[in-house]
């Protein structure tokens, strides 16, 4: 009736069909994530329109060094994730494992760098509240947006690292064959998290630098 390989899930007639469904389902989920972050970006755009000066003043306080290195780290992790999928399609188990490991490691590196950045921001007291160092009150809006956007992105990244590690371990233990359909889905999710950060970089770090 069909190539009833152990990978075939219940309702699917063929593995190929299931593979397309997994990536289609993930793309629909990505559309919802785009709108989830889109709501936040709308808030950013509106407040930037309402008080551009305060936004520029507040944005000068962010540290571009951390932002830029983090972007480079995340872009590299996107490369290794894409390679993991390509290797799994070619059936190269060892390379897939290596790529997944590097992706997870780069994700962790991102979080560590982020931790340092958060630490230095808190040192400067940049948490919105009554004794906020920057003067016009609207700067607190930028920093509220900064903490929320990077916070939600970090949560998404941690979930991503978790999933990548899980499938890496399953691959190593052999419970998950190398040509499973799951790799494609996880890669799409990881690239989404990276694309969100690609847009966060100019919004948070490159505003009002000139």
């Amino acid at each position, binding site marked *: 009736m069909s190539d009833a390989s152990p990978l075939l899930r219940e309702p699917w007639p063929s593995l190929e069909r299931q593979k397309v469904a997994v990536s289609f389902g993930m793309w629909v989920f990505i559309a919802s994530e785009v709108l989830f972050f889109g709501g936040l970006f709308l808030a950013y755009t509106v407040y930037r329109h309402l*008080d*551009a*000066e*305060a936004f520029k003043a507040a944005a000068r306080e962010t540290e571009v060094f951390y932002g830029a290195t983090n972007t480079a780290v995340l872009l590299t992790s996107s490369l290794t994730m894409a390679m993991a999928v390509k290797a799994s399609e070619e059936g190269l188990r060892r390379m897939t494992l290596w790529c997944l490991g590097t992706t997870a490691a780069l994700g962790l590196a991102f979080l560590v760098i982020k931790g340092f950045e958060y630490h230095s921001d808190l040192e400067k007291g940049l948490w919105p509240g009554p004794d906020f160092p920057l*003067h*016009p*009150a*609207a700067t607190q809006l930028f920093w509220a947006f900064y903490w929320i956007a990077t916070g939600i992105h970090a949560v998404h990244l941690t979930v991503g690292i978790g999933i990548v590690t899980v499938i890496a371990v399953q691959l190593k233990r052999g419970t998950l064959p190398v040509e499973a359909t799951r790799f494609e889905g996880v890669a799409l999710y990881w690239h989404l998290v990276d694309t969100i950060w690609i847009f966060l970089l100019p919004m948070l770090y490159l505003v009002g630098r000139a």
Partner: protein
Amino acid sequence: MTGAFPPEASVYAGQWDRLFAVLATVSALVVLLIFLLIVGFSIRYRRGSRAPRGFLPEIITNELELTWTSATAIAFLFLFWWAAVQQLHNIVPPKNAIELHVVAKQWMWKVQQPNGVREINELHAPVGRPVRLIMTSQDVIHSLFLPALRLKQDVLPGRYTYLWFTADKPGVYHLLCAELCGTEHSRMTGRLVLMTPADYARWSAAQPGAENLAADGEKLFRSFGCSGCHAPGANVHAPDLDGVFGRKVHTADDRTVTADEAYLRDSILLPQKDVVAGFKPIMPSFQGIVNDDAMVKLIAYLKSLSAGTRP
């Protein structure tokens, strides 16, 4: 039917009632048409009835489909046009409107008449003359609802919202809060008292605490130290406020803003927001120093400057 139709106290109430009446009749007709069709078809074409049931040619079904689609679309566009015209008619209030300041606070309305008379949960206004309400809230979003005038406008904290009307029937009507604002939202009601101009003049003169807003504003202008920089003779390089109200101001970051109440209020509370071109942002913020009542007086004073009549 007591509560059916609220009393009409303004020209606009009448117009909008007519729009409502037309929409109501159109809707009633459509619902009646659907009802009759359903009942008619159900009886005529119930199972086993002998009514003729020849088939409907394809063309008829498509044409029928097309007609009622375009019919509804055209009807709705006409209704939109009519409503839009009525809405656009009264966006910009006339120039010579009497200005009342309304401050909404959790669960009361504070109204200040032009001559400084203050009242709680009461709004006295003359009939026959345009009246403009400049409204702000001190805490949450409220909404001033005058059913007799068919008017409602949310009152937002940290910003001015405006409502204007020209009433034509004296009387006492409801004044309600229409946006959920906390525990006693339903008790935050009051009276809208519309009087003939003569009664209104007599009433407002007889009220205690009638004083000249602009004169008070000037005293505050000096006591808060504004005159230190903004007076003509001052040695600090600050914008001259003579005739500032309604002027188009060119700001430092190349924007042109109209100097209205909202601009004056922002410039006093958040001076960094719209720094005037050619000036350094040295003005301190008066947030927490100038409360809403003092703000009303200061703005009245600044407006009196632009009217060219030095108090």
